[in-house]
């Protein structure tokens, strides 16, 4: 299957192909066009699958106003890579997580895929994956972000994720008291 790698600028002037094409064109919030295999889009995104099935795909570029071009490029890139990768046994839950639901571990290429992203790109991608109902991509990005939180103090987490502390000193003390067991070492 001929799969186009998303190159927004080049696609912009592209003529709409015949109706039974095997790709769909997606349009980012800033008007860039990306093409992705219809099969991969339908398989990986519940939202796109719904749109394809419902015939609401616009051959001139389906508007995805919530997703910027960088994030959409990553989404398309991921879909294309995924279409070309052979699912391995590692897809089946492997780690024993503390919580009940076992999570699927990312595969090696998925790890690399998210590792190369900047923080901002990663955060945009997790939102895009959520918006598009891409369970697997959401899994992979959430895994990456959770890895970034592990073993860190609240201050360090705020720094990494650039989050403002909206607690008062008293509130913070109270919340630490509630979980005194976790802060013995501080």
């Amino acid at each position, binding site marked *: 299957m001929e799969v186009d790698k998303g190159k927004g600028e080049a696609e912009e002037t592209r003529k709409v192909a015949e109706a039974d094409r095997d790709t769909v064109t997606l349009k980012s919030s800033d008007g860039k066009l990306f093409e992705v295999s219809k099969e991969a889009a339908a398989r990986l995104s519940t939202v796109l699958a719904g749109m394809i099935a419902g015939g609401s795909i616009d051959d001139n570029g389906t508007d995805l106003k919530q997703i910027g071009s960088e994030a959409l490029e990553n989404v398309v890139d991921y879909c294309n890579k995924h279409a070309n990768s052979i699912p391995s046994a590692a897809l089946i839950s*492997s780690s024993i997580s503390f919580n009940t639901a076992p999570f699927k571990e990312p595969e090696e290429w998925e790890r690399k895929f998210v590792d190369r992203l900047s923080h901002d790109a990663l955060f945009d991608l997790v939102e895009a994956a959520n918006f598009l109902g891409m369970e697997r991509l959401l899994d992979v990005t959430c*895994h990456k972000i959770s890895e970034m939180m592990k073993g860190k103090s609240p201050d360090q987490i705020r720094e990494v994720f650039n989050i403002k502390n909206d607690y008062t000193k008293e509130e913070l003390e109270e919340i630490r008291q509630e979980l*005194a067991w976790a802060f013995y070492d501080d």
Partner: protein
Amino acid sequence: MVDDEEARGLLLPDDVLAAILRRLSPWDLAACRCVCKQWRDVVNGNGMLLPRSLAGLVLSHGNIRYARLFARPGVDHGDQCMPGGAVLDCCNGLLLLDGYWVRNPATGASASVPEPPYASPRVEGMGCLIDQDAFLAFDPAASPHYEVFLIPPIPCIGNSVVLAPAMLRLEWPPSPFVLSVFSSRTGAWEERAFGRQGEAAGTVADMQQDTRDFLDLYRHAEYWQGILYVHCQTNYLMRISPSDSTYRVIKPPVDVNQEYLLGKSEKGIYYALLEDDCFRLRVWILDDCSCDQIEWRLRHDSGQGLAFPTPNSDHGNWVFAPLYSDDESSDDDESEEEYEDEEQVEEEPEWDSDDDSIIPTTNDMVEQSSAFTQMLAFHPYKEIVFFGRSSRGLAYHLSSSKLEDLGEVFPTKWYHIQTYIYLRSCFPYTPCWMGELPRSFQSIQDQPTSG
């Protein structure tokens, strides 16, 4: 790669944030709660620090005073130290210990419960000479408070006191049934009268015809959706509703002269019966939707007897977690070493009934009948029944009818002990990471240590 000054920060919808945080250990979650209010609300709102996974089974052996956590290696049960002292009950991560201590092994919090009033006769003219069973009612999702219920046994069963004929004709349990209840809200015991709805289990005389032997059998109680279900002598279930001070007797699905196992699992309250002679396992679920019509619904019938495997030490990888992780002087080095060794074993998918730890079964009925088999507990979240057979722990999956070997349920260092050691009690342990224990909170140092 990333310039912090340009980073715009992580602003995620609650559901995505929850999907991320759900992957973290309780320690990381504790830190995340301190990051900002949104994060705290997501952690709290999703009950991420409440009991939601099975860490292992808390086992008590024969005359050994302390309990031990029998768990899959690699499961993150943290620094939880099982306390010295016999475990009377375990409810949503909280343990009730002999000598009336309540302890949360996950958070290390302990609280003392005052000595209960003497197990006095609850029914006029009937002496209660046997200890009352004590059960915990604790649901951290609903309240940080807990209650302890004492359930008096059937009068004089198991001892030689002869009751007057008039007493024998009385209904049991009586109505009202006066129970001693401790509440952490008040910090005191009180006598609470529970009125019966529906029929009694029988007369005192009926109860005394029960011929089961009174070994140190342990009967479970389960606290679920604000109701305390107590497995009583002669296999009836007491459904105690603290909110309106009533109780109801639920008769067992099949009247047999054998102990059932009560448990809480995926779909609510379960009752299991393993027939001694043929190892046929039947499991019922309590249909408790409307109070007027409480029925047992058959969930599983193994039909012919379970084909138990021949014990084989090559299978199973559950081990005993270190006993006192806060006690340097632990004399349990051997087991700890064993535990650490095991930790390097590659983790296997949790409860993957297709993996090869499902052991081949044998039809050697001679051997089958000779091994002592007991039901231990239900898995609180999955339809699995735990068994003890000879010295092995087994997990039976209701969905696939497969048996999984978990490992030795007796620490190896005890093999030289000649006396017969049996499993006295077994509780599924689900760590709860939230909250201090209300009232009379004391640090673990104040707790009497076991000898």
